[in-house]
């Protein structure tokens, strides 16, 4: 086969991959700027530039509140997970003790729990503590997937740091807590940012718990709000508004993911996080 045919075929494949990856989101953006009857005309290139849908989403209605709820839940969940995970990861990676292997496997197993398996039990717990319809129920529930994941990735990261870094501190008689705070934490910022970001995305995207534990419009998080966006009548699905809301909540994520691409890839391969 001549070289240029090979090259052309290769670049055709590359173009195909790129188009397949970005076209649906491109089309969502295109749709979000259409209103009225323009929505029901198929266009491949941008033709309209109406901000009506964005006005609907951001000014009228409770969607800004939904965004705020998602931000609060995701931030609190990430903060608590990282806080609990840093010390736990230190114990799991730097201190030898009986039962460590079993503990690690248990944590890995919990990270693979199907959410539905705990749904009934968690619902009972949420009801028992009077947390139904409050954001606390979600903060509590999301620990089940963010905590094992952060512990796991941070353990892998800390394990790979050389022994020497804490030797001096041990010789100086520093307490383990001091070692974690003064020796490890400064080295761990890159890992914390990556892990935190991945946990943030997982919490931001969660749907099943959010659908089950929260029932009023103004306590909902973004994914449920988008799933339940409906028009004036049953038949009339407000596609323009849905696409505008989708774009609003996705653009920040895409920007973050692109900024942290390389780190995310290494975090993914270390933790095998679920998409």
């Amino acid at each position, binding site marked *: 086969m001549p070289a240029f045919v090979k090259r052309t075929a290769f670049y055709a*494949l*590359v173009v195909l*991959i790129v188009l397949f*990856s*970005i076209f649906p*989101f491109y*089309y969502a953006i295109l*749709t979000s700027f259409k209103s009225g009857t323009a929505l029901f005309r*198929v266009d491949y290139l941008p033709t309209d530039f109406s901000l009506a849908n964005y006005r609907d989403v951001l000014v009228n209605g409770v969607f800004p509140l939904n965004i705020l709820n998602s931000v609060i839940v995701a931030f609190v969940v990430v903060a608590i997970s990282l806080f*609990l995970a840093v010390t*736990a990861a230190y*114990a*799991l990676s730097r*201190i*030898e*003790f009986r039962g*460590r*292997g079993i503990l*690690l*496997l248990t*944590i*890995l197993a919990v990270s*693979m729990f*199907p*959410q*539905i*398996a705990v749904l*009934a*039990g*968690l619902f*009972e717990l949420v009801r028992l503590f009077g947390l139904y319809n409050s954001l606390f129920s979600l903060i*509590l*529930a999301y620990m089940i997937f963010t905590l094992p994941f952060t512990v796991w990735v941070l353990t*892998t990261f800390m*394990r*790979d740091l050389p*022994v020497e870094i804490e030797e001096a501190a041990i010789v100086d008689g520093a307490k383990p807590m001091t070692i974690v705070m003064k020796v490890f934490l400064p080295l761990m910022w890159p890992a914390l940012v990556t892990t935190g970001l991945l946990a943030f995305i997982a919490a931001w995207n969660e*749907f*099943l718990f959010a659908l*089950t534990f929260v029932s009023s419009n103004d306590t909902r998080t973004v*994914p449920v709000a*988008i799933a339940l966006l409906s028009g004036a009548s049953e038949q009339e699905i407000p*596609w323009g508004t*849905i*696409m505008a809301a*989708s774009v609003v909540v*996705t653009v920040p994520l895409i920007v*973050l*993911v*692109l900024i942290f*691409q390389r780190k*995310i*890839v290494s*975090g*993914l*391969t270390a*933790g*095998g996080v*679920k*998409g």
Partner: protein
Amino acid sequence: MTNAIPGAPPTDDAMRTEEQPAARSALSRQRLASAWLFLTPMLAVLAFVAGWPLLQTIWFSFTDASLADLDAARFVGLRNYFEYVDYGDGTGEWFGLFFDAQWWNAVWNTVYYTLVSVSIETVLGLIVALVLNVPFRGRGFVRAAVLIPWAIPTIVSAKMWAWMMNDQFGILNDMLMSVGILSHPIAWTASPETAMWAVIIVDVWKTTPFMALLILAGLQMVPSDVYEAAKIDGVHPVKVFFKVTLPLIRPAILVAVIFRALDALRVFDLIYVLTPNNTETKTMSVFAQENLFQFDQFAYGSAASTLLFLVIAAITLVYIKAARLNLGGGR
């Protein structure tokens, strides 16, 4: 990260920190004490949000609990799983989850969806990974583009595709009709023949990047002199791929496949949003959620959840074993 196999548990060998035998006792006692001090809060939270709810779910599956009054739940044995009702005239009938055609339909849908989507994702992920492993101009851009579907929330992807697959105004029908593949528009998400395929298409679109990245990580660990040696020997590239590359990246592919399969087996959100109330796509998770919260069959739904948990637990155990063996034997 230097972990050879993504997600593989660190072995004790790899984790052994060096100790000074002399100063050992007092120091290691102190370190041991703080290890448990450090672990307790994390373990307590996990026990509270994962362990206890799981046991509760299993308990509910042996009761007659109803959503309206969970406290009144009474133990009924295995009735939610199977029960023979004798009609007293010599005939009788089996009831319970094991004899529920809808449950088996959900099991079949889940298995079918998992097998088909994970297979397609593995092949496409491998292709994308191979492309990204070749140095070419604009590779960084392509890698970024590939990550976009992964970054988009599942609900948003479901809605985006639902709009593209709309029977009247969708761009997908328009595209396929203008190139002559379709002669008339089809209702992708609603019609029984295509609903499952609609779900699979969206899932493939969304999770192929994940597959590609995990496989790419494995590909990048293949030493380049292997390829050079093969090139000098004049081995055909296709043969190199099947005889050299593929065996070397098999562990990475295996891990990626198992992660994806575990994820696919519990799928809920994509199906709930893209094809609501469609028996063709109802999976085990959807079946359980409906029984728990929509049909007022809390105990029955708990039994379904418990079975799904058992299936996933079994696969997880196999995975942990496989990953360990690889780590022990591979390097």
